[in-house]
């Protein structure tokens, strides 16, 4: 999907240029940053003042060429924040409304075949979301757009739905653009994350890139800490062991199990040449992969972690890219998101 557009909003203009492939891209930003407007513009519900929108080889909008396809002619699956299910139709009728292929398959894929005859009013938030996804996917769209996919869910449900959605998006392999105000959701669901502030894309990159080299203080604040995804398991000593995607094992004092997101702040990670005799339970050995100075501080990437140390410490340790280093943090500094 190729986007290059300007949409005038009330107090500023949404100006964005973006290219995505068959990946999940998340745009994060505060409310009022133009996130929903962007999705509506791609879907053809809002008309940009200039620009070009193309997807899957078709041009949907081109101000230069005078092309502006109506929403029904754009092959797009838009999942609304509140799902916008038709309240007077059953789950099956909702999915059938825009379906091209077999409705049964669409219901089955999302595990809602048992709800076929139910009306949306009787469904839980998570079920509604699945119906909205089934309905959008039933159209066999070339592009999937998700507006705050987890915002309408209760906190206890979010963790489960998040990992379910992550699996589903991976399976689909569709160009997917999702917008959210929650950075944790963005990292959990998307490979690349863009930060949208005041209608402009401030930075676009992998979560690691954003953490290691935030383009602005806002991005640094937004990204906050290392968000690590892994599988949690209780240990007999009462701690939780999380095996990260790259095989690294870390300990947390939070109780959790299953797929979780783990938060470690860069300033809670200490760096040393060799593991010392300290109270930290987590020691990640690796090499310095990136060094980014931020004023009197330096952000240092070691394996899956980004640490923040003072420039003086980095100097004293003689940190250089490619040199071995140990990153340590306490089990109490590894917080499981959504843990109770």
């Amino acid at each position: 999907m190729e986007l290059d557009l300007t949409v005038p909003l009330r107090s500023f203009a949404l100006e964005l240029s973006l290219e995505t492939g068959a990946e999940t891209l998340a745009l994060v930003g505060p409310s009022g940053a133009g996130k929903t407007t962007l999705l509506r513009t791609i879907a053809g519900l809002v008309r940009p003042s200039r620009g070009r929108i193309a997807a899957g080889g078709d041009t949907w909008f081109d101000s230069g060429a005078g092309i502006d396809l109506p929403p029904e002619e754009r092959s797009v699956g838009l999942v609304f924040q509140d799902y916008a299910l038709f309240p007077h139709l059953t789950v099956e009728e909702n999915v059938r409304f825009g379906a091209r292929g077999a409705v049964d398959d669409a219901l089955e894929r999302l595990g809602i075949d048992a709800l076929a005859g139910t009306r949306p009013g009787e469904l839980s938030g998570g079920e509604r979301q699945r119906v909205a996804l089934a309905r959008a996917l039933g159209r066999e769209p070339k592009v999937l757009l998700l507006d705050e996919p987890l915002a309408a869910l209760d906190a206890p449900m979010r963790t489960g739905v998040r990992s379910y959605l992550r699996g589903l998006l991976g399976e689909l392999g569709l160009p997917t653009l999702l917008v959210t105000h929650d950075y944790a959701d963005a990292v959990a669901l998307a490979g690349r994350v863009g930060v949208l502030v005041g209608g402009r894309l401030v930075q676009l990159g992998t979560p690691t890139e954003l953490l290691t080299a935030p383009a602005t203080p806002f991005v640094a604040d937004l990204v906050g800490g290392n968000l690590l995804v892994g599988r949690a398991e209780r240990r007999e000593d009462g701690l939780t062991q999380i095996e990260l995607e790259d095989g690294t094992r870390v300990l947390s004092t939070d109780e959790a199990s299953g797929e979780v997101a783990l938060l470690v702040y860069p300033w809670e990670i200490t760096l040393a040449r060799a593991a010392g005799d300290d109270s930290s339970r987590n020691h990640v050995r690796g090499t310095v992969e990136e060094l980014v100075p931020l004023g009197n501080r330096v952000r240092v990437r070691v394996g899956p972690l980004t640490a923040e140390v003072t420039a003086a410490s980095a100097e004293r340790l003689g940190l250089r890219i490619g040199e071995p280093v140990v990153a340590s943090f306490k089990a109490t500094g590894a917080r499981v998101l959504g843990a109770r």
Partner: protein
Amino acid sequence: MLLAVAGALALGFLLLPLLALFLRVPPATLVSELGSSVVRDALIVSLETSAIAHAFILGVGTPVAYLLATQRFRGRALLIGAIDLPLVLPPAVAGIALLAAFGSRGLLGATLSAFGVTIAFTQAAVVLAVIFVASPFYLRQAVSAFESVDPDLLAAARTLGARPFRTFRRVALPLAAPGLAVGSSLAFARGLGEFGATIMFAGSLRGSTQTLPLAIYAELDQDFDAAIAIGALLVLVSVAILAAVKLLPSWSSISPFRFAPSRSS
């Protein structure tokens, strides 16, 4: 105590005249009077003109209300305000206004007669008078019924491949249906009782423009019992329509969703 007395007085004042219609003449006379030719003619004229006017109100009013509710354009507020005008206009003014527009010496009179068309004092005039006074009842209700449909649902339908007409038919219309039915009933009741504008613009020609309300007036000094019988009949129709309006939302399977669009938060 005082409240109870005041309430009883008010209720009695409202109900006594209606009851009197049924008590003034014996029920057997009421029924036989309804079979008289004057009443039969008026009933046919009323049903015909009401049906045609109502079909027109629904057929034109529904899409107009949908557009007013969903589109934003200059002059929209003015147009919505104008819909209410016939509601507050005295019926006699409506009648003289229609004459001034469509009468033989009216604004369009010469043009119409050039095409051999006469409207005033024909059944077409009855239909026009009914449309003029009754359509605002439907339009107002229909605009607010369509406005209460969550715009995201219409947007969702479009992104699911539905063209504007299918979006209207499959989403907007069923969700607005209970409100439309209420408006339709009110407009029908108002149209059926239309008197002032009709008598000025269409006259009271038996078998042609004399509707039931006009027949009451005509029979007043000819056959008082017949006038009473027509009155009783119209009361029954009014009660039936009122009951339908009150009960309709709870009967309809759609209505529970009318005020609860998909907002789940």
